[in-house]
């Protein structure tokens, strides 16, 4: 079950969950690793920060926020910057409740550079595995498919634990924009794809062969959402532990276009 922690001044606030003793050495984000808080923080970020820092937090009028932790910032320092603003700049102070700021911090952390992924595997064998099993749907650099998420920077933005979970059981959490559907028009064949957008009257999908195609629901005779991800699950039987280590080792090298192109 995917759950969303909804945060907004008119929704909730719980100062108690985010309070800490005065004079404590280090403030810890109470939402660290909390996926629901990350999603809530994403919404808060979009409403309050994206105008200056960009929808992807990679900077616009304000600086790139995805690199803060990579250059030594901590959750606490980012929290403090949001709270106090930056004197002499257009970055204003915020009076929003602590838990909203922590949710934003959790979101920024989730899209930021993560420590290099630790793996005992061989990245070259992992790359070969990736090309054989994954590249048809996932793009890295200039090569690969579009049906699944691009992975060019996956080593920067996903932890080892998150990657293992995504490989072993991809249907456990299918991101919005990657949910599968089967549909058919009156005179056409059955079509499988992933839902990119939907409203009461239409649906926009990417077909499994990578075409973007929109449909009016009134013209469909079948519309069946899938319960599973289009990505197959790589169980231990299908992908042994050692091979998974190789794949993780390769994914850990994917830390941006420059890194990929340089290889």
């Amino acid at each position, binding site marked *: 079950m995917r759950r969303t922690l909804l945060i907004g001044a008119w*929704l909730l606030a719980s100062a108690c969950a985010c309070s800490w003793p005065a004079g404590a050495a280090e403030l810890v984000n109470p939402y660290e690793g909390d996926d629901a808080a990350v999603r809530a923080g994403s919404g808060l970020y979009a409403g309050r920060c994206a105008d200056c820092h960009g929808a992807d937090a990679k900077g616009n009028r304000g600086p790139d926020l995805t690199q803060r932790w990579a250059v030594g910032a901590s959750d606490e320092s980012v929290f403090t910057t949001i709270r106090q603003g930056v004197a002499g700049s257009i970055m204003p*102070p915020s009076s929003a409740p602590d838990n909203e700021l922590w949710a934003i911090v959790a979101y920024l952390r989730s899209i930021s550079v993560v420590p290099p992924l630790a793996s005992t595997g061989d990245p070259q064998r992992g790359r070969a595995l990736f090309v054989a099993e994954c590249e048809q749907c996932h793009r890295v650099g200039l090569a690969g498919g579009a049906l699944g998420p691009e992975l060019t920077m996956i080593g920067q933005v996903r932890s080892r634990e998150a990657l293992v979970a995504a490989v072993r059981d991809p249907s456990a959490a299918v991101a919005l924009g990657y949910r599968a559907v089967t549909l058919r028009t009156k005179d056409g064949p059955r079509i499988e794809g992933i839902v990119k957008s939907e409203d009461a009257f239409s649906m926009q999908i990417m077909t499994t062969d990578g075409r973007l195609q929109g449909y009016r629901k009134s013209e469909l005779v079948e519309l069946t959402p899938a319960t599973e991800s289009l990505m197959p699950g790589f169980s231990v039987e299908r992908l042994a532990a050692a091979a998974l280590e190789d794949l993780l080792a390769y994914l850990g090298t994917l830390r941006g276009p420059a890194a990929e192109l340089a290889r």
Partner: protein
Amino acid sequence: MSSCLLRTTTVLIATAVLLAAPPRVRAQTEGQESEGVSSADIAAGLADPTHWLTYSGDYSGQRHSPLTQVTPRNVRRLMPQWTFQAGTFARGRGFETTPLAVDGVLYVTGANNYAWALDARTGRPFWEYRRTLPNDLTYGSSAPVNRGFAVLGERLFMVTLDAHLLALDRRTGGVLWDVVLTDYRVGYAATLAPLVVDDRVIVGISGGEYATRGFLDAYEPATGARLWRFNTVPGPGEPGSDTWPNDTAMARGGGATWMTGSYDPELGLLYWGTGNPNPDYYGGDRRGDNLYTNSLLAVEAATGTLRWHYQFTPHDTHDWDSNHVPVLATLDWQGRERQVVMVANRNGFFYVLDRVTGELLLGKPFTATTWAREIGADGRPIVLNEDGSTGCLPDQWGGTNFNPPSFDPKRKLFFVNARETCASFHAQPETQVVPGQVAAGGMVWVDRDKASGALRAIDVTTGQIEWEFAYPTPTMAGVMSTASGLVFAGDHEGNFTAFAAATGEDLWHYQTGASIWGAAAMTYMLDGRQQVLIPSGAALISFALGDD
């Protein structure tokens, strides 16, 4: 989704009555000095087809226009005439306003306390007003919205995010007077469209997520002097104080009044909804029913005296504010004519009450809520799942919200955008209360996979759902209906859709490009053509019939 069309009952359209009536066109005032809007004009409601003079169109809250030029037969020819872009970043919330239409001019409020007078023929502005807001807003920083002007004479009335009430010059947007409602720094803001009743400007307040105490005020239109205040949470020893454990809980008890109410001129009564008790989710420090939170109040407009109240959700711990537009109507009720007030409530129930006495006539769920499924003989809900820490209750946005419903008195159908959601509530005691900081007392977990929406037509005499139209996600859009048999509703994906009032058949839709959120359509005649206007995102879009 196997089908987007889910209708339980179909009623034939009486096509013979759907012929477009000839439009009544008021003498145009282009280039002339306007004579101003009188109290009688406002009380006449939508009788003048060129007017829309108050938030719901008239005092009844029905948001049901008598206009008949746009019909189920011709609505497919509805075409955009112009789009107005606010050009302001709304920080996640866009237009929630209902424009007022006066003699070819639209008066519009927007996010962050911008406002405009627009040429109704072109969408071009005559003037723009922008309030300089303090940088330490409390409630107003999280929901920087506004829901509309009120008008009287040459004055426009508007509330602000720093909890002031302004009178603007209708011709220039200049500020005529500016009075303080209350101290915003404690946690208050004001967002509703004021309601002008005779010689009073009625306003309510936002702030129930902070440790605040709600009130309803009346002000003198010429000067801004306050005429009366009704506190929605009693003071020590006052009636209702026995529903609170102590004075401390009452002093921060919530009960905000943040949506425009309705008015019965014959009874002289205002009908106004109140919001959640504070803190929202933790009720351990405020045991009791917590009057007059989550209630409908009948308040004498002349004096501010409470005549009666009905509490929909006693001792609420789910943030199910009752800040809805109360809908007034005259119904044949079991052989007897009754003056009623109707509310589709955030707790998932639809209610009909006698508006003279407050007697409950009907209370039926219009959603799949598992919080309660019936109202007991004592008028209280028979609660099945009180705290919601387990199971699946309507989320804190509720079975519907402040987005206006509409009512077709001919068909006896109440149209409301319903929300089906699944949430669990996790209360937490508060260790301290800091003025100006949110104090909600817990968290809510929402299962996004179990969320959907639907426009529903409720038979008000039985509470049965006559038809529905399903949406992929819950919507916060409002509804308007017309005497020609149309229902106009928005959805979260941005569609503005016209439905047949009799059957729920979708007849026309337009993708506006942004969620229609909190706003409902309005309609009026201009140069002999019926205009239909919908706010969407940071835009207003005006439609009229194109050629065949």
